[in-house]
Each structure stands twice: as structure tokens, then as C-alpha cells.
């Protein structure tokens, strides 16, 4: 059985076509771009909420999209263990929909930031990191204005091993300098307790082809390959 992934197209999503391109042309799996009102979970093995500015990020980033019918469909997938992934704006939607704990606040620079950073793998038993090793350091770009992760109870998150990725330097040290947006504990990505829902601020779809990477890497592929692997194990 072939793996089938949906990428949700909210009004204002703008990394939708980029994500579709990488899934179809780089990872070589079947992925459909689905308008948010038309999405039906039963057809898919996994779903990605892409980056962008869903509903213009009006009111608060991700909050209007969190009330889209697509989220009710995604909740069914969340509950039966299929992968639900949020990238950048998709992560914001997932925290607003309370699929994931915490919140994404305005960057401490108070500006939008677009640049390549490094992230370190903290948990490799999730639907978006199972093809990686703990401690791997990945080159990947960020592009957001509200990416500063915050949570009241950091200790619980750490104890439950829900931190999947942290911003780090090339030696794997999670320093202040390597933290682009002021995220609490350098957190770049988190997962739910079941490990099938992951939110991640950087853009793996922009880091999956060496031609796009300043260092010639293609670390972004590992994320999508992990998702495919996770689905195959379930099937």
C-alpha cells in the first residue's frame, strides 16, 4: 500500500506548494494539496499543516485556522495515531488547536527573521525524527516573526521527553547566540505524548535539496523520510 499524505491549504498558507514539491519530487511519495474546507481524513495516512500566514495571521498567528473544519478532521488522525505535522505557521496552528502544549510568541528581536540556523535532535522516537540520531546537528532555515516557544511548565515537557529539536551551534551547544528568536530552552520543535504530532518552527521543505543549502546539505529530507517511515510501520 502506498503512503498518502495531505498538505492542508489554508487561505494564506504559502509554503504549501513548496512542501508538495519536496514530497512529490524529492521524497517521491504521493502527496495531495487539499483546500482546508474539502479535507477528509479518511483518505490519508498523514497530514502536514504547512508554513505561511493562514487567514493572514489576523487576531493571533494560527488561531483562526485552528477553528477550520480541517482541524476537526486532523483531530481524528491525532487520536488514532496517524502523523500530524505542523511546520512554522502549522506549528502555531497546532498549539492554538491544543494538539501541542505551549505557545509561540513574538521573536525577542521584535522583527521577522529569515536565516539559516542549526538544530540538534533531542528525541528520535517521533513521527518526524525517527530516521535521525540523537545529537545530530541539522542545517535548516527559519522564517518567522512569532517563533519564540514558551511554556509554563518546562520541567514536565522535559521529563516527558517532548522536546524534539533545539537550536544549537555547530558543536551541539544550545547557547544564547545560537537561539535566533529567544525560545525558552532553545526549543525549536515539540511533540505530544504519543509522538505522532510534532510542531517545528524551521522549514525542512526549504532544506531538502542541496542546491538550496548554503552548505550543500539536504537535512530536510530526514524529516519527511521519518514521517514516511512512521507511516509504513503503522500500515
Amino acid at each position: 500500500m502506498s503512503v498518502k499524505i495531505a498538505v492542508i491549504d489554508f487561505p494564506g498558507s504559502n509554503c504549501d506548494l513548496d512542501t508538495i514539491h519536496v514530497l512529490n519530487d524529492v521524497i517521491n511519495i504521493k502527496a495531495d494539496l487539499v483546500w482546508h474546507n474539502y479535507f477528509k481524513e479518511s483518505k490519508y495516512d498523514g497530514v502536514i499543516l504547512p508554513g505561511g500566514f493562514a487567514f493572514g495571521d489576523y487576531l493571533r498567528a494560527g488561531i483562526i485556522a485552528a477553528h477550520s473544519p480541517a482541524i476537526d478532521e486532523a483531530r481524528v488522525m491525532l487520536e488514532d495515531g496517524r502523523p500530524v505535522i505542523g511546520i512554522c505557521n502549522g506549528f502555531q496552528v497546532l498549539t492554538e488547536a491544543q494538539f501541542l502544549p505551549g505557545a509561540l510568541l513574538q521573536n525577542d528581536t521584535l522583527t521577522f527573521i529569515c536565516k539559516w540556523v542549526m538544530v540538534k535532535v533531542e528525541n528520535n522516537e517521533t513521527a518526524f525524527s525517527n530516521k535521525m540520531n540523537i545529537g545530530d546537528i541539522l542545517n535548516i532555515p527559519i522564517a518567522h516573526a512569532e517563533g519564540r516557544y514558551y511554556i509554563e511548565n518546562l520541567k514536565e515537557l522535559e521529563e516527558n521527553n517532548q522536546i524534539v529539536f533545539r537550536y544549537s551551534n555547530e558543536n551541539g551547544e544550545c547557547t544564547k547566540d545560537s537561539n535566533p528568536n529567544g525560545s525558552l530552552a532553545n526549543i525549536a520543535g515539540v511533540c505530544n505524548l504519543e509522538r505522532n504530532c510534532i510542531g517545528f518552527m524551521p522549514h525542512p521543505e526549504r532544506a531538502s535539496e542541496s542546491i538550496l543549502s548554503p552548505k550543500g546539505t539536504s537535512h530536510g529530507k530526514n524529516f519527511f523520510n521519518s514521517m514516511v517511515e512512521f507511516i509504513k510501520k503503522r500500515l
Partner: protein
Amino acid sequence: MTKVKVDENELNVDLTQSEVEWIQNTLERNPSITELGMFDVMWSEHCSYKSSRPKLSLFEDAEKNYDYVLAGPGQDAGVIDIGDGYALAFRIESHNHPSAIEPYHGAATGIGGIIRDILCMGVRPIALLDPLRFGPLKGNPHSQWLFKYVVKGIADYGNCTGIPTIGGEVEFDKDFESNCLVNVACIGLGTIEDFKHAPSRAYNPGDYVILMGGSTGRDGIHGVTFASRTLTELSEADRPAVQIGDPFTKKMIIEATLEAIKTGYVRGLKDLGGGGLSCALSELTGDGGTGAKIDMRKIFTREPNMNSYEIMLSESQERMAFIVKPEGLEEVLNVFRKYEMAHAVLGRTDDSKILRVYDGENLVVNLPAIALSESPTIPRKEKRPEYLDKLLTEITPEPSKTLDELIYKLIASENICSKEWVYRQYDHEVGVRSVVKCGDGDSGVLRIIGTDKFIAASVGTNSKHCYLEPYEGAKEGIVEACGNVIANGAKPKAMVNCCNFGNPEKPESFWYFAEAVRGMADCCKNLRIPVVGGNVSFYNEDEVSNTAIKATPEIMIVGIIEGEENIITLPFKEVGDQILIIGETKAELGGSEYHSVIYDLEGGIPPKVDENQINSRWNFIQELYKKKLIKANHDVNKGGFIITIGEMCFKNELGVKLDLKDYNNYNLRDDELLFSESVGRFIIETNPKDHNEIMKLAKEFKVYVKNVGVLSQNPIIEVKGLKSGKLELDVIKMKNLHNSTIPNLMEI
């Protein structure tokens, strides 16, 4: 201003008395208030080019003379055929006046407007570039405010629409203090079929006229007439003439429009920009040779009780007009419904050649469709300013500081320092096409997914040189912008320009415009670059301080790179490699950054452009590319030779050992040799084993090339062969100075 009596009312219009008479004679009656307002807008300088048209005819006919040009000047954007079935559309325009009054929304709606221009060519907008000019930042909160919010306006709008901002330029100069320049450029990519589907004409009678997008409000009424005047103290009161942008709606319009075109039922397409519905409807029908009957009350308005004058002249953002085949109406409307975009069927085209607009039962507009686009031209007087004679005789003072002190000061100066503070705020990666990132090359490079073809695009001009000699300065802008794409491995394909000048009614301001156009036209003919579009912004003049901006003919060049292996970047790469300079350095410090930063001097003789030599250098470089002999390339620009070397060292923190003893052919002073801004030079990195082959080719192409040094591990720039002895520069110190200027200057 002219007072015109209509019925019982007296109306102030910007039309001249003779224009009003022409209108009355042509219509054989008095125009209604709405009609008069439409003429007022459509015949404004901004919409009609009535001062500039006679000069713009100097450009050669691009569509006739270049077989790959699909659309030339006069259309919403220039379009070229780049092979493999793809069409590339691009355009640059100004949004200076609104940005000077309200920087955030002024800049944002500038982006919105240029995106619509590209979209209405039927292709997807894929990149933005923004040349910006402000007063000096240092100790100047007003300039900082304009700069900060213009950048934020561009970032918030561009980022949200998902179009990467891949390049631009920023210049700070006191002459832009009250009249900042915000130029915006956009590139669109689609198939040639996409482009052919949706001309900006309504040529078929019986088609439906549909308005789609945002609602029509009272914002931006007379925005274009406002842009066709000089700024005064009262201009602050014009703030309601600045439109408010909504990038989310724009994103929806982009997707809905592209999907509507894919249905095959869209026969014509036009964006609503300056002049609003008046402009769109008259151009669609006028250019298409049809007429139309429009029911104005179908238009969805933002506020109640808007009258026909307000509705027809509103410049509310985020609106598109569609001409749709009758049999496809429902299918097109269904696309709009999917995206939840407001839309209204306003009426149908007919063969009357008359544009009729009804407000209920009342016929409020009844004009020959072409009348509005038939504005008369106005011949303007030209006069070379007398102050130039004195300025051109100014000489470079003897430096009172050591060379290293001068260089550290220059590298940190506002015009030369890193613009990372700006481009970090722009999403320059969305679309997964950006191959050469901001800061790594002289131009932005985009891949065309599914091909091995790349687009290189650059914008630029040198307003300091144009101020002294607009003819040569305008040529330089073209050579410089072409040099930028060539440095990244591309062949320049076509040019569009955005002319920013002062008040054309003043002979001295108009002389600058006339000379710049003559320079651009000559240079483009000589270098075989088609001019496929342009925009003119006059009245960049401040009546309070009585200053006009420096003449700024902004140039945008797009080029094509064939093959990934042919993409070249700017940073020096490998220790032991040779550094070669292509082109001689002459004593051309007039209008240089060196003069300005060190001596606060604007005079001297600026560089001259020799197109024959430039052309040989370009051909030579293409030959070196073909033979894979170039590892890094950077064109020599502001600050001259030594600044260019520094910029190439920064990324990989390498050093160079230079010897300029044999390079100084004209017995120049040290400061002339290091800081002169002679046009069209390149610094390249090559493998020493290729030296003989390169020098042999140089001879063949009759190009001056000199080996000036070698790359070293130690991040020190060491220069021998100067008259004052040896010079040593710390690359890390230069880099830190280069990177910290703007963050340190921004107090707000």
C-alpha cells in the same frame, strides 16, 4: 489647479485650462463631475506620462527588434520568452509619495501594486526586489523612522503573500531626506500559454465584466494626482490619499486569479491601481476596441452612500477586473467562491466603443473608451543647471588620514555597509527557488524548477554620479546592473527602469530626466539590451526646503544562467588562488563614496562609460565561464577596488596578498587607485594553473586583465606597490565594522 464649473458646483482639478477646453470640445458638452474626475486622474502625470512620453520614444521598439520580447513598454509589465516554454514578466515602479507620508502602508501598497501588475500578465509572481533611498540615518530620527517602517511594510506584505524578496539596494543621502524613494520590482514566471491567455484588453463584445477582491472604499481617492504634485507642508493632510494594504486578501487574489485563468474562460485581466476603476475600465475597453455598459451599484462598497465620483476614482487596494467569456461565467465565479473572495458582475462589453456607467437609472459616465487614454503631451523646457560647472571642477583633497583609517571609515559608511539588517526581515527563501542568497552574490538567483535554467535579477543605479552627469550616470546604472547578473554567471536579457526625478515643470529638473533617458536609450542600443518597460515618477521635490532629489533612473536587469554548474558567487573560496582584475582603474572619483564619506564633497568628474570596452569584457567573461575558469566574481562598485576585495574576503574570512605596482597605468594617487569608481570592472578568483590560458583569451578579446594578488589563509589584506608603501588591513575588523553600522545607528 484649475477651477471648473460643473452644474452649480465649482471643482478644483489639476487639469490645465486648455485640457478642460479640449474635453469640452471633444464631448461637445460639459463633462459631469464624475467624468471630470476621471479625466483629472487619467490625465495626471502619473497615469498619462504627458511630460515624459516625448522623451521615452527614444527607446528602441523592443517588441520589433528582439524576437524573444513578448511584451514591451506600455503594458502592465515587460514579458520575455526564456525558452523551454516559459515566459518571464517583470516590472519596477515607484511608490515614493505615499511612503514619504506614511512609510508602512505606503511601502506595503507599493508591493501590492507591483504584484498586481505581474499577476495581470497571467503569471505567478515569484520574487520581489526593492531599491530604497532615504536621508542619512546618523542622528536623524525622521530618516530612521522612514527606513524602519518602509522595510517593515515591505516585509509584512511580501512575507505574507509568500513572494520572496531576493534583492534590492539601499542608499542614504541628504537629498532624499524629505522625499524618500521607494521603488518596488516584481518578477513573475509562467508558461507562454498562461501569458497569452489573459491580455489586458477587452476585445470581444458580449463578455462579462467582473470585479473581484477587496471592497471599494474612500481610501486613496486621487492618489495619483497627489503623486503628480510636489510635497508640501500640507502633504501630511493628504494621508487619506494613501491606501491601506491587506496582504492576506492579496494572497487570495493571487491564488484565485491564477486558478480562474486555468479555467480557460478568462479573456482579459486588469488590476485596479492608480486611477481605480476609471483607469481599468477605460484601458480594457479602449485598448480592446470595445465599449461597456456598467452598473455601478453592483460594486460592493466599504461604506454606505458613496457617490459615483468616489466609486469610480477610489484606489482601494486588492481589486482585479476580469473579462470573462459568457459560457464560463459560473465556472469562474465558482473559483472566486472557493476562495471566499467578494465579486460582482458589473456589466458586459459591447461594440459601442463607449464606456457607459449607470448609477441606477442615471447615466453618470458616457465617454468614448479611448478618450481617457488620449491625453495630450506637454512639451517641457530643458536647461542644464549652472551649478554643475563649478561642481565638476572640484578636485580631490589631499587625505589627512592614513589609508587604513580611510578604508575602515568607508567600509562602515551607511552606503557601503552590510544591508543584512534589511534582508533578514524579508523572507527571501519562500518558494524554494532562491539559490544565491542575499549577501552571497551581486544579484538574486532563482531556479526554475523542472529545468536547468536560472534567473538572475538585479536593481541599481548611482544617483551621485547621475547628479553630476545624468547621461553617463544613467548608462552606468545599466552597466552596473548588468554587471551584477553577469557576476553571478548570467547573460543579461532585458531591462526595465523606474525614473525618479523632480518637478518636470522646472527646466533644470526636466533636463536631468531628458539626459538620463538619452543615456539609457543609447547604452541599451549599444549593448543590445531591450527596454521592456518603465515607470516615471516626477515631482520628487520638496517645496518646504526647495530641494529636488538627486536624479535616480533606477535600472532592473534580468538575466538567465544556463546550468547549475555555471552559477558563480561572490566570496573568495580557496587559499592559493589568483585574484585578477578585469578593466583599468582611472582617476574617476567624482561623485564617489570616498568623496562623500571622507570629505563631504559632491563634486568632481564622475566615471564615463565606454560601451565597446564593456561589451568586450562581458564577452570575455562569458568565454571564461564557458571554460569554467572563474571561481568567484564581484563587480567593482561603490567604494572602489579595495572595498570590493574586502567584501569578497568576509564570508570565508580569508586574506589576500596584493601587489598593485604594475596595475597603476595612469600614475594615480593611492586614494585614486583604491577608491575610484571606474565603471564595468570585475574582480575574479581563478586557479593559478589557468593563468596562461586566461591571459591568452584576454589578448584575443582585447580586454585589460591584471593579476593583482593571491588568496591567503591569514585574514589580512596586504597591499604592496602603493606610493605610500605597504598597507595592511584586518579582515575581521573590516567585517565587524561592515556588519554593525545599521544595527548601531538605529535608535528607534
